[in-house]
């Protein structure tokens, strides 16, 4: 779901949108997926470890300017999602500083905050409020959201009656209609059918304007190369390279020891 931090501001191409300075993120997480008091009590005195320390980001410094579509690539566990979450304020950094010069929307997953027991219409409001929009803002955009979703009368049916495609269409519509200064997208487009993917990709292209910055995280290297005008490559929490998409992707592929076909094989 999209998350909107503030209302839009005026910008010029080339002015700074996001400044990431010596960013570090270290956290402690539990080893068990669902830690319990029972397990903790049972292993008292056995010296068993329950938590592990993860260094997700280390000394990352980068600036993103308005007019830029920045792609972030890297293998699993490279720190891509962690970087997105710190820039969008979901997780606070443990070192360094992030300065954001505009309203931020995060599209990290579709349908966050939606309740299947409620109608599509009610979920537009619920999802919008979850994203930080006001009731009046949602009122103003509702018709556009409903039209973009192409749900017709089904917008007033409970969402539990929706197909997965209808669910994805409505969720993306709520997210796509907002026009933020900085849009952060993390793999959200990799769901839904081919028509939905095409529609969402087209919407992403529409959002590429001079007074907006887009940050896109994806494993789909072909999409990154098509949409972005700049790419960074992260590995084990560190910034490995930054530059033109084709160059950075080639460097990444060489490092990962995969052929060119890997990028085109991956889904959008």
């Amino acid at each position, binding site marked *: *779901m999209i998350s909107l931090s503030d209302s839009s*501001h005026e910008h010029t191409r080339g002015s700074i949108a996001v400044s990431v300075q010596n960013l570090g993120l270290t956290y402690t997480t539990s080893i068990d997926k669902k830690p319990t*008091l*029972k397990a903790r009590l049972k292993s008292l005195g056995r010296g068993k470890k329950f938590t592990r320390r993860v260094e997700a980001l280390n000394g990352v410094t980068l600036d993103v300017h308005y007019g830029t579509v920045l792609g972030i690539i890297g293998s699993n566990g490279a720190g891509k999602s962690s970087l997105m979450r710190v820039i969008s304020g979901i997780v606070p950094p443990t070192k360094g500083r*992030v300065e954001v*010069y505009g309203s*931020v929307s995060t599209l990290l997953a579709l349908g966050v905050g939606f309740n299947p*027991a409620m109608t599509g219409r009610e979920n537009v409001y619920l999802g919008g409020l979850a994203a930080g929009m006001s009731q009046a803002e949602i009122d103003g955009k509702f018709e556009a959201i409903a039209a973009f979703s192409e749900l017709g009368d089904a917008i007033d049916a409970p969402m539990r009656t929706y197909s997965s495609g209808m669910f994805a269409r409505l969720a993306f519509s709520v997210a796509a209609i907002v026009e933020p200064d900085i849009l952060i997208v993390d793999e959200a487009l990799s769901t839904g059918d081919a028509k939905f993917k095409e529609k969402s990709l087209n919407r992403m292209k529409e959002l590429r304007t001079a007074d907006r910055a887009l940050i896109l995280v994806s494993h789909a290297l072909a999409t990154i190369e098509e949409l972005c005008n700049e790419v960074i490559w992260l590995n084990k929490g560190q910034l490995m390279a930054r530059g033109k998409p084709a160059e950075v992707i080639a460097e990444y592929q060489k490092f990962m020891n995969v052929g060119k076909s890997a990028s085109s094989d991956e889904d959008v």
Partner: protein
Amino acid sequence: MSQPVVVYEPFKAGLPPMREYLRQLRHRRAFISEFARSILREQNYGSAFGQLWLILNPLLLASVYYLLIFVIGGKADTTRFGHLTATLFLFYLIANSLSEGAKSITSGQRLILNTSFPRIMLPISAVVVALFRFIPTLIVSFVIHAILRLPYSWEMLWAIPILMIAVVLAFGQAILISCINVYFRDISSMIPYLTRSLLYLSPILFEAGKISHSIKKFEILNPIFYLLDSWSRVMVHAEAPTAKGMLHASIFAFTIFFVGTYFFLARERDFAVRL
């Protein structure tokens, strides 16, 4: 634009910047009420029968307990029934806040992982759900009061501060337990035993003045003992609560609220990586 709109830095002393946090909380109050409504809708309380069940359920419970008292005690009067219903309804506000609050963070996993917002909104929403469920029973309390011809007086206005203390306690315990449940997921399954114990140890099935001297000294340890006693005095007997009762209830409620809130705020940065 020369000045950043938002700056994210490491938390000082482990706490988020409080001024911004409270501003965000205020800005998002519409979401709290909409989210609470969506939970109620999910639990079928949006329909007429669902709302009827909100009233019928505590009434049926009160009737069962009244029958139990009558069978065991051999006698029970109308005041006893009034006391039982009034205290049971308030008890359910506390118990529902605890059980709804416990799972509020873990069930809000997708929101926490994908959206930036004050996490405390989730346990607050859980208490709002419990309050929505309590309001119809409050109306039923007044109807029962009239049917049983229980006394009325201006002292009944004490119900307002007592209810406010109960709400502070409900917020505090929901916030605290929601945070603990992130670290120990089986805590929520222990809550039914905790609430059942509290039910029997609190002045609900009995009146506070009727417990034996040998166990009376332990009543101070029960955070809701004096709260329920004060509620019964006000709502059933139309008397003012005792100063000791109000002080005890307030100290417990505000202590749990402040300790719970501090603990939650100090830990909430972990939630996105623990869920």
